[in-house]
């Protein structure tokens, strides 16, 4: 039983990359027939920008989901982080580092709160993070009617718009964060313990894992990733935006990306590489539809269908594996 449940955890690259390749190939062909070009400079750049924002959130989300938890508050953390960063900077470069530090610290604090609610007070993660999200929503709705603060010009030029060839700096940031998360998950004790807690909390506890500490850490890291995404969005928008997280549906989309990437929603199985695949898949679909000038609402319908279909395929495979 334990050997069975350990096996999929070691499988490094899930099928999402096959789906990604197929999607890009078909998309390229369809766009070509339509008289457009999928892989020109501007579409690639915007695809990677979309992927960077969602990716940062989704990598953090992967950590908590692996641990058998969930974070529905990320959308509000993102919005809050854009505001903290932009208001602290207030248009000057001098406050850049303190602002980034403060935004990350605030995010980490929210993650700590989430983690403590889930572990110490044993509140169901869905409800705990939803409740914390509502607390933040009230603060944001009450305090802000529209954009506030100004992002420092250096940050806008670097993280927001700088790129190396067609690859934006923000996407490199995502690559770096993903690499760090991958390393933490596969090479460190924290990572192994996190997967163990997500797989079976009781077994993990009896094997000497300090479940609470591991889960709190995962929640703090998840919120910090959302905070980082907020800083990135502030650098794109040039100011703090109190609704950017919720309007982008970052909470639900990040969970969708994680699950499309092959991580089990119940925890204990999956990884960040798959998540990035899921993010790229969602971003590619977006880019293809933009090229085809598909109606934005139709895009959403297709997106919903694809999310369900992708997860159904995984479930089917898991069932077959269980039968074999």
């Amino acid at each position, binding site marked *: 039983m334990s050997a069975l449940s350990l096996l999929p955890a070691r499988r490094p690259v899930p099928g999402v990359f096959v789906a990604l390749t197929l999607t890009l190939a078909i998309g390229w062909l369809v766009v070509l027939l339509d008289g457009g070009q999928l892989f020109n400079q501007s579409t690639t750049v915007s695809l990677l920008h979309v992927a960077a924002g969602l990716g940062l959130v989704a990598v953090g989300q992967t950590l908590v989901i692996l641990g058998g938890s969930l974070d529905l508050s990320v959308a509000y953390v993102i919005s809050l982080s854009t505001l903290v960063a932009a208001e602290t900077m207030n248009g000057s470069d001098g406050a850049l580092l303190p602002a980034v530090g403060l935004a990350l610290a605030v995010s980490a604090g929210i993650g700590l709160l989430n983690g403590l609610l889930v572990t110490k007070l*044993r509140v169901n993660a*869905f409800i705990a993070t*939803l409740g914390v999200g*509502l607390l933040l929503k009230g603060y944001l709705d009450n305090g802000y009617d529209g954009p506030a603060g100004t992002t420092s010009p250096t940050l806008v030029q670097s993280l927001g718009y700088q790129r190396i060839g067609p690859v934006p700096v923000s996407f490199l940031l995502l690559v770096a964060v993903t690499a760090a998360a991958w390393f933490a998950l596969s090479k460190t004790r924290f990572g192994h313990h996190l997967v163990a807690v997500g797989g079976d909390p009781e077994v993990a506890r009896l094997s000497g894992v300090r479940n609470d500490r591991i889960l709190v850490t995962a929640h703090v890291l998840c919120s910090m990733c959302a905070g980082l995404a907020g800083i990135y969005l502030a650098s794109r928008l040039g100011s703090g935006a109190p609704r950017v997280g919720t309007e982008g549906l970052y909470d639900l989309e990040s969970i*969708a990306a994680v699950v499309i990437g092959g991580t089990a929603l119940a925890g204990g199985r999956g990884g960040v590489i798959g998540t990035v695949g899921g993010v790229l898949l969602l971003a590619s679909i977006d880019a293809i539809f933009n090229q085809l000038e598909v*109606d934005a*609402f139709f895009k959403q319908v297709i997106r919903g269908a694809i999310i369900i279909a992708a*997860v159904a395929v995984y479930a089917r495979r898991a069932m077959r594996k269980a039968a074999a």
Partner: protein
Amino acid sequence: MQTVQRRTLPLRLPRVRPGGLLPILAILAVLVVLVGIRQPDFLSPPSLMSFLGRSAPIILLAAGQYFVIVSGEFDLSVGSLVTAQVVVAARLIDGDPARTWPVVLLLLAFGAFVGLVNGLITTRLRVPSFITTLGMFLILVGAVYLWSDGAPKGGLSEEFRRFGRRAFEDVPLLGRVPYALLVLLALAVVAVLLMRSDFGRTLVAVGDNPRTAELSGVRVWRTRTIAFILSGLAAAFAAILLGGYSGVSFQAGAGLEFGAITAVVLGGVALGGGRGSVVGAMLGALTLELLFALMNFYGVSGALRSTVQGAIILLAVAVSATRSSSR
């Protein structure tokens, strides 16, 4: 097989049924007292009746969500389903009273169909319900915008709207009885009877331990699918009342799924299934609505509504979680 099922289920039920109701009744009582101190008029029969009528849609949604949650799943699609229903109703009726009843029937069928699809995808394709209903949420929102080109069209007939906004006036003792309240009471009775029937027991057993239920001969997939259909139907009824009361907009159902889940949890129902009662879930919704009314009376800014809502949920759930773990 059959004997095992009969013997274990009645044994478990007495443990499940109480427990949940007392805390929510206590919170409700405290809120009623607080409202009474601040705004005694509110407790007069006519205004209380209007309040209950206004709260009917969210209470119905909470009951629908209860069926799904107690069976161990989630339904995140109900908010978007309500929006879709209201917009579809407006466009199909287009102000023509003759179309009222056909459209009402169509909405109920539509709600049941969406529930059926949610249920079949979740149970037959083994997609976690969180993802199924999230996908359905995206699909419904996208589809309804697409179908109406970005702005709601048509209008509801007065016959349709009366369910949500009219009342029997000049009733002795009570003052007025909104139609919505009667609809709510009728459906609440149906829900309670349903939970007392074999189906209800099976539903709780499936949520408590699907494997045990399966081994005792319950067709888990069918039971859960029916739960999703009931949730879809509840959303349809809620949409009919809500459309009548507050009119047509794309925001008609926004956020209602989380409101309903909050209410259910507040009512002592455990996420993950198997614990709690449908009456608790409906009282949870009533408590939430009363809380919002109270905040109104105390002049709390509407924007802070969600903060208070969040704090209350965390507090209620944390208290019940620490109590159950110390027991």
